[in-house]
């Protein structure tokens, strides 16, 4: 028995090493060494700060750094505040419960799709201005500056909010369900606090502690976002991560050294953003603690709560409207300013969409394979018991891809793939998707596995059921609700991956997301609209299949009904 366990642990460790440690180590080395000037294949052997100095001499680099940092911090702070406002409102205001049903699907929408929608909605010639022109605005032509003075940055922040508010909201609600919130607010109210004040001062600080990892992931992503910036227009200077991507596209190979330094710098910038966030945490926590100690029984007027909730919902509304705009564009070719709606509906675009369909197939293949492997790996790790032995180290290692900017890993990985001739291969594509899906899989599977009632397993063992059979007949069905969530989330995360697909695909394998970003940056609105709609097909089809299977499989089990996807 012990030998079997050890063998399982060894297999799990080896798999983790191959899937996680190997690409991470290679990716990080492949970034750091060239950044220090060490790339003998190109004749560069002098370890020095020259590549970094060269990168810092790129025109506009200071502006790019400030832009990335500002965008990331503002977007993360606003999505955090908005999600907490919504959680507090949701916990007490019944009609808001409907919001939950739109937030679930919204977190499955890829970042780039949201960005395409926001572009179609908020550009000077976008849908919003079309809807009110020329009647209200008098515009017969789009204004020189639209609703947003700076579409690149402000549009980016709104797009990030539309994506991250529902994510943080659902994460917070999940955390809330583990807390005795009702009892705590009851105590707070008996002490004379309003219900909201009791939530804000007594419950939410605990929730905050539970969602720090997702928050950090949101912050790191926002500081280093590439796909959304590409869609919302090549502003000057571009965000730092976009500048780095451009560096890697330079025909001059030696330009990769300073570009690697840029990727390293992007990693540093993420750390800086986290440090600033931490400083803000300390500050706000001190203020809040003082507030609580003084015992103010502040009452927010009910109106204020509704107005704030309204503002918190706005970005999501913009995201949804944008998706509708993209849907309309996918069915039209002639839709000239200032018409509020397209004059005619045409399927001509869809008839030519064969190229997009093959990209959709690639996305399904890469996402499906990577998701199944990630889920399998998670189960292996959890069943082997290695998690218990290793504790937090394992957890942090799996979560690294969430806490490092993607660009800092994938550029280094690409150098390794190029050398091993794996670039542009399906192996590389699935591998890199697996690396970025695994953290999400892990964050859901680990608590679900920990919550299993092991007595079922023991009872089965006493009646002589073999280990593998027990796993198949007892553990898997008990994990089914978590499993379908993981499979759905894995597919959603995979279809959204832009940079990893771009670098691993090596141009040979195009996913629907690399296509959508390329078409949105330069291409007809119709084509970009179609690509955006096809991006939604993957989460949608996955959802329907999983939901259907779950209903069919567990129809007769009363206890499982609550566990389906919502």
């Amino acid at each position, binding site marked *: 028995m012990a030998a079997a366990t050890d063998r399982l642990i*060894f297999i799990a*460790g*080896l798999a*983790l*090493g191959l899937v996680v*440690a*190997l*690409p991470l*180590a*290679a990716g990080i*080395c*492949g970034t750091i*060494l*060239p950044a220090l000037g060490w*790339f*003998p*294949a*190109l*004749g560069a052997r002098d370890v020095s700060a020259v590549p970094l100095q060269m990168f810092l001499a790129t*025109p*506009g680099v200071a*502006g790019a750094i400030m832009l990335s940092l500002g965008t990331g911090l503002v977007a993360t702070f606003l999505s955090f505040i908005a999600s907490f406002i919504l959680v507090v409102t949701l916990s007490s205001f019944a009609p808001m419960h409907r919001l939950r049903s739109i937030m679930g699907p919204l977190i499955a929408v890829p970042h780039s799709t949201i960005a395409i929608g926001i572009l179609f909605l908020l*550009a*000077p*010639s976008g849908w919003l201005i079309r809807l009110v022109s020329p009647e209200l605005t008098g515009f017969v*032509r*789009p204004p*020189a500056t639209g609703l947003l003075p700076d*579409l*690149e940055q402000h549009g980016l922040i709104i797009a990030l909010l539309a994506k991250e508010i529902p994510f943080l909201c659902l994460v917070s609600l999940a955390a809330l369900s583990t807390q005795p919130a009702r009892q705590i607010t009851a105590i707070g109210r008996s002490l004379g606090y309003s219900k909201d004040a009791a939530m804000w001062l007594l419950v939410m600080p605990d929730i905050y502690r539970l969602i720090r990892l997702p928050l950090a992931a949101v912050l790191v992503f926002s500081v280093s976002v590439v796909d959304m910036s590409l869609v919302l*227009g*090549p*502003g*000057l*200077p571009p965000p730092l991560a976009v500048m780095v991507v451009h560096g*890697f*596209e*330079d*025909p*001059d190979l030696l330009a990769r050294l300073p570009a690697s330094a840029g990727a390293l710098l992007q990693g540093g910038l993420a750390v800086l953003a986290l440090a600033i966030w931490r400083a803000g945490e300390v500050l706000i926590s001190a203020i809040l603690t003082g507030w609580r100690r003084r015992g103010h029984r502040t009452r927010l007027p009910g109106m204020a709560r509704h107005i704030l909730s309204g503002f918190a919902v706005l970005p999501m509304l913009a995201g949804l409207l944008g998706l509708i705009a993209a849907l309309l564009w996918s069915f039209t*070719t*002639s839709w*000239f*300013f200032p018409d509020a709606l397209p004059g005619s509906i045409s399927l001509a675009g869809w008839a*030519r969409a*064969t190229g997009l369909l093959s990209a959709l197939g690639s996305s399904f293949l890469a996402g499906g394979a990577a998701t199944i492997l990630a889920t399998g790996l998670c189960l292996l790790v959890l069943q082997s018991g*290695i998690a218990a032995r290793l504790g937090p180290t394992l957890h942090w*290692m799996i979560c690294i891809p969430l806490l490092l900017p993607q660009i800092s890993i994938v550029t*280094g990985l690409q150098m390794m793939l*190029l*050398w091993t*001739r794996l*670039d542009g291969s399906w192996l590389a594509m699935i591998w890199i998707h697996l690396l970025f899906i695994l953290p999400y899989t892990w964050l859901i599977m680990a608590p679900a596995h920990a919550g299993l009632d092991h007595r079922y397993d023991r009872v089965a063992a006493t009646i002589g059921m073999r280990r593998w059979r027990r796993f198949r007949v007892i553990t898997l069905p008990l994990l089914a609700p978590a499993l379908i969530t993981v499979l759905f989330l894995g597919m959603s995360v995979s279809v959204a991956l832009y940079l990893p697909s771009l670098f691993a695909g*090596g*141009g*040979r394998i195009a996913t629907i997301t690399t*296509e959508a970003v*390329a078409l949105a940056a*330069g*291409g007809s609105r119709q084509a970009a609209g179609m690509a955006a709609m096809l991006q939604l097909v993957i989460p949608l089809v996955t959802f329907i299949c999983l939901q259907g299977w779950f209903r069919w499989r567990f129809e007769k089990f009363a206890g499982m009904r609550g566990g389906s996807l919502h």
Partner: protein
Amino acid sequence: MPCRFHPFSFAILASTCMSLCVALVMLVTPAPSTASEHSTASEHSVASGHDFSSVINAATGQTVYFNAWGGDDKINAYIEWASAEVSERFDITLVHVKLGDTGAAVSRILAEKAAGRDTNGSVDLLWVNGANFAALKQHSLLQPAPWVEDLPNWQFTDAAALPALKLDFAEPTGGLESPWGRAQLVFSHDTAITPLPPKNAMTLASYIKEHPGRFTYPLPPDFIGLSFLKQLILELSIDPSPLYAPVSQADFDAVTAPLWIWLEDVTPYLWRGGKSYPANYPALRQLLADAEIDIAMAFNPADASAAIARGELQPTVRTYIHDGGTLANVHFLAIPFNASAADAAKVVANFLLSPAAQIRKADPRIWGDPTVLARHRLDPADKAALDALPRGVATLGEADLTRTLAEPHPSWMPAIEAEWKRRYGSGN
């Protein structure tokens, strides 16, 4: 519990060490010695059909990774058609690798050479011209032997009448890239909004200042964006002759000064104040369709007509060129030195040069890219088919398109790009 070596730690340690080794080896591998420069193109007679049939036989079943800029739907659709044709005719799988910037493919081939990957490269056929071709040629990244004049369909071209077939931006092609199409910079405007567009660089400057926010150009290093800058410099220079010699032989600052003065003058009045630029010409065309800007540009004289036919541009859009003429060039197909399927790539290049493929390409309803074939060398039937093609409502006549400017020496392109980035790359 006895202290034992943890199997997990071992696995992690082993794989980390392994990956470190891999990374180190990758970085340490020395660059292979540069292969000897290939010989310049020798005179080739038209190869007999028999020679090429052996190429066709060898090509059967091969997969060609065709790296071509993929930013325009109708070009992508044309390549899809070609892919279906070569699959049926020659059993060749043609995969369009859509590039955002051709420079990325050059960089990839260079990286493969640096990594010693002399065979089985990832690019089989590359759509290229100008500075990128010059870079490929300079680094010996192309097929070592000239192959273009061995293509059976080369017979339909007339390089004496169209010297640009053998001279790519003043760089001799050396038989290393097969002509695919012709291009000329044309501007488009909506006659309903801008009845009288400015037709030279000086009046364009005043127009931009009188109509703030209504003009822009694609963000360099986009090909059209850089071409627009070259167009300006050719128009603004009193003596453009230094532009036709390598940039290293000229006083760059003095020659390009008129361009920077012009840009300094108009940039604050550009679309979004010159703080943002569209990514490429289809994005520019979309802005024209949205009436966000007044003037768009393309390297394809039929682009506007095709967009009108598809309903993407207003029917009132027309094209024009500058009075002193506009840049014109030929674009090509090249095969890298390490192509995995060089034979099939040649078959594809030959197919794309065939009258059937060229006539389809010239159809403004399909793509509208002018043919590189010489009318007088075509069969009467093909000639009639070519002449019967509609020109498109917004396309200029042949006579209007005779005012052309030759492309400057390719070395000017990266130099202008670097200086543009230095001045405007930060958006200030």
